[in-house]
């Protein structure tokens, strides 16, 4: 239910939200089962580190998709955007474009260009959606094809390879035992959580996503909200693109295409309401970890990719079921301790979990 505490404590930040409750339970359960089943194979330093390396490139996509969900939309063009900005950065890094620059400058220019370009592509999405009032599904389906097409035209379908070592070093660098890109991802996540949940702009976004008509009648600029959201998604796509080329040392069209579909699953499991206006960044964080852990388990078990898909589907259904009845369950457990608080139908509605 609605929790707008002047000073939310870390505990009721999570316990006050039925979705996060369910999510955390599943996470703890999965973690325990993994510990029992795999022990060191899962929790060895090496495996944890390799998980941390894999999370960010997908995590940025999931954060972007979360923003789209928050305004009641979807962005199918995220990975196409990531790939195209990766390719452009790749051309600058290999020296095919702007050959005169020295290595340090090349890296700086490549990073700035990639982020700038991806942000522009996001802005383009936002403008199409806001100006022509098309659904984001249609608009980004179009731009997805467009961005992939441009990438294809630039590369001819080949990979761009041969980046400077000092650039790819960023993809394997660690601070202590923790990968730098993972730290960067956590910082972006925290920043996003602050922006969304503690600032006026974030409040507007949640209100606009939940009920655009009432937002309009409250003087919230809906045009601006749409444009800003999709521009921000573009920026996150750029981060994802850079992480990818840094890690795999090549850029090509079509890398990570499956991320779009996976990020949809992550958003739903994370309790980001597809109709808009609900969901927290921390949910994405937990879910991304959960997915990575599951993927790791599948690898240890040497499951075929088909089985993997089946299990993810199962997880989706499981969490959806838990959120629906999560609150009912919780209240039943608490009932002996709480007087004067009975459960009404509304309390058990997963849609009611508020995030303002």
């Amino acid at each position, binding site marked *: *239910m*609605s*929790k*707008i*505490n*002047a*000073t939310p404590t870390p505990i009721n930040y999570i316990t006050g939200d039925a979705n996060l409750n369910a999510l955390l339970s599943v996470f703890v359960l999965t973690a325990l089962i993994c510990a029992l089943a795999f022990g060191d194979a899962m929790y060895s330093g090496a495996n944890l580190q390799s998980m941390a390396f894999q999370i960010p490139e997908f995590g940025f996509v999931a954060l972007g998709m979360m923003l789209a969900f928050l305004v009641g939309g979807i962005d199918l063009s995220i990975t196409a955007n990531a790939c195209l900005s990766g390719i452009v950065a790749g051309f600058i890094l290999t020296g095919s474009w702007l050959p005169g620059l020295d290595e340090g400058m090349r890296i700086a220019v490549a990073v700035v260009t990639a982020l700038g370009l991806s942000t522009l592509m996001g802005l383009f999405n936002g403008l199409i959606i806001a100006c022509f009032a098309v659904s984001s599904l249609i608009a980004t389906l179009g731009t997805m094809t467009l961005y992939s097409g441009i990438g294809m035209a630039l590369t001819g379908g080949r990979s761009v390879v041969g980046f400077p070592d000092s650039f790819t070093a960023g993809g394997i660098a660690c601070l202590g035992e923790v990968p730098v890109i993972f730290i960067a991802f956590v910082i972006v996540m925290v920043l996003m959580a*602050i*922006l969304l949940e*503690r*600032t*006026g*702009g*974030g*409040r*507007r976004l949640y*209100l606009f996503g*939940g*009920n655009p*008509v*009432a*937002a*309009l*009648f*409250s*003087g*919230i*600029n809906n045009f601006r909200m749409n444009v800003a959201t999709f521009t921000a998604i573009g920026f996150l796509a750029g981060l994802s693109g850079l992480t990818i080329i840094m890690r795999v040392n090549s850029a090509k069209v079509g890398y990570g295409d499956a991320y779009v579909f996976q990020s949809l699953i992550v958003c739903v499991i994370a309790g980001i309401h597809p109709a808009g*206006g609900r969901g927290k960044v921390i949910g994405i964080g937990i879910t991304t970890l959960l997915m990575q852990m599951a993927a790791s388990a599948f690898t240890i078990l040497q499951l075929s990719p088909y089985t993997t898909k089946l299990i993810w589907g199962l997880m989706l259904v499981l969490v959806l079921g838990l959120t629906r009845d999560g609150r009912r369950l919780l209240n039943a457990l608490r009932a002996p301790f709480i007087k*004067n*608080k*009975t459960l*009404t139908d*509304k309390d058990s509605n997963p*849609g*009611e979990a*508020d995030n*303002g």
Partner: protein
Amino acid sequence: MQQGAQAALKDGAAKPLLVEAIGITKTFGAFTALDDINLMFKGGEIHCLAGENGSGKSTLVKIIAGTYTQDKGTVVINGRSYKELTPAQSMAEGIQVIYQDLSLFEHMTVAENIALGHLREERSALINWQQVRAIAAAQLERIGVRLDLNQELREASISTKQLVAICRALAMNARVLFMDEPTTALSGREVDRLLEVMSELKKAGLAIIFISHKLDEVFRIADVVTVFRDGRKIGDFPSCDLNAKRLSYYMTGKEISYPKYQRISKAQDNFIEIKDLCKKDMYSHINLGIRPGDILGCIGLLGSGRTELALSLFGLNQPDSGKILIEGRETALKSPSASMEAGIALLPEDRSTEGLFLERSVAVNSSASVIGKLSHGILGFFDFVKERTLALSGIERLNIKTTSERKLAGELSGGNQQKVVISKWLATKPRLFIMDNPTVGIDIGSKAEIYEQAQSLARQDMAVLLLSDEIEELTANCSRIAIFAHGQIVEILDEERLKDPAIGSYIAAVVAAGGKQGTAQDTAAAGTYNPKEGRA
């Protein structure tokens, strides 16, 4: 139960007892929705349930329909008593409820909507379309109404839909028919037709129970009125023993009379002046000035252009030509934020979709119009403490009945929801407050409070533009009234004219005649004009 049945016998066979509620109690958490209610519904009787929002009427209906289960008490239907009732049992006993939203299939035809419920009961595997039409025609015959059986419901008027919902209930062999505010969306003539149908059904021996806020209808049609207040039954009254004043006293527990507004402001310059404003197909050549302290009323039929004008003033409907002067300066009101900056607030027509974020708390709603003012720093950190203070002061100032500022707006009663919308706009400290039908579907007590609030704001030199369909509402609150017809202002009544006690019926006559100035052609055009289309 035995006693109830005997009482019914004594009452004579003409009015058989169909439903009896004995000692019904229902609580939601700490809130007692119904407290030991005893009530009887008889066939051949029109029974009105009166009471303010949240007084327990709907809860009782839902218990008898089997949607809710009572904590204590028994429901006796046709002599069989139930401690717990399922919706299926309730329907099998001949109880039908027509809710406000009607729950019809918009994409299906009149005939299908009427007959499908009946066919489902029969559990036939195949649909016999002849039978569908026959069932539908038979039900329409029963209420003496002719409708096009093949019309798709989404193309039908609300009044037609209402009749379809009644026929559907009849097709399910209804003996007891509950109707929740059936006349809210109907025009005068349509209300007459519906009330006639209700009388027909009464003659056929059905028990009709209807819930309405419109007191004049209650007196016209009801045989018995049961008044609820705060979950308790105040009493059953034969409607001939009641008058409006008595009834509202029973409902609210206090004497309600609307005080007449007197403008005391000395300011003579218009806050806003509208000059020759035109918008194609909506309104034309509007000239209007509103001074601080004015409550200017606007009345007119659907399509008269007043809501469209209000939206123009709030930046949501760009006029084609003409000027808007604010404090003498020409101002372009291009967006809601521009209007807000100019000091204009709009309480929209539909509070549940346009006015409020129903799934957000009272606090979030109260601050929705001033998010910018509550944000600080480069990142715009939101001040949650100030938000809470703001919400609490709104709750106190407007007497919003809520357990906490964290309660969801959708969980409040209609009147309190509307007060939250007002509170949201007062936070912007507006100079002109446009209220579009602020008291639709709101109980009498909250109505009086909203009037009081509007008047006290005007006394503090706010300009108020009050759009309303209720003549009484306008004559009580307004210092001037503009009558709209076919997109034009046909007459403006000043304070002197409003002192005339017969002014109400004069306004009614002008409105009904469409301003008397419309040619036959104009009237025809206005008849087909749909303002919603124009706005989209």
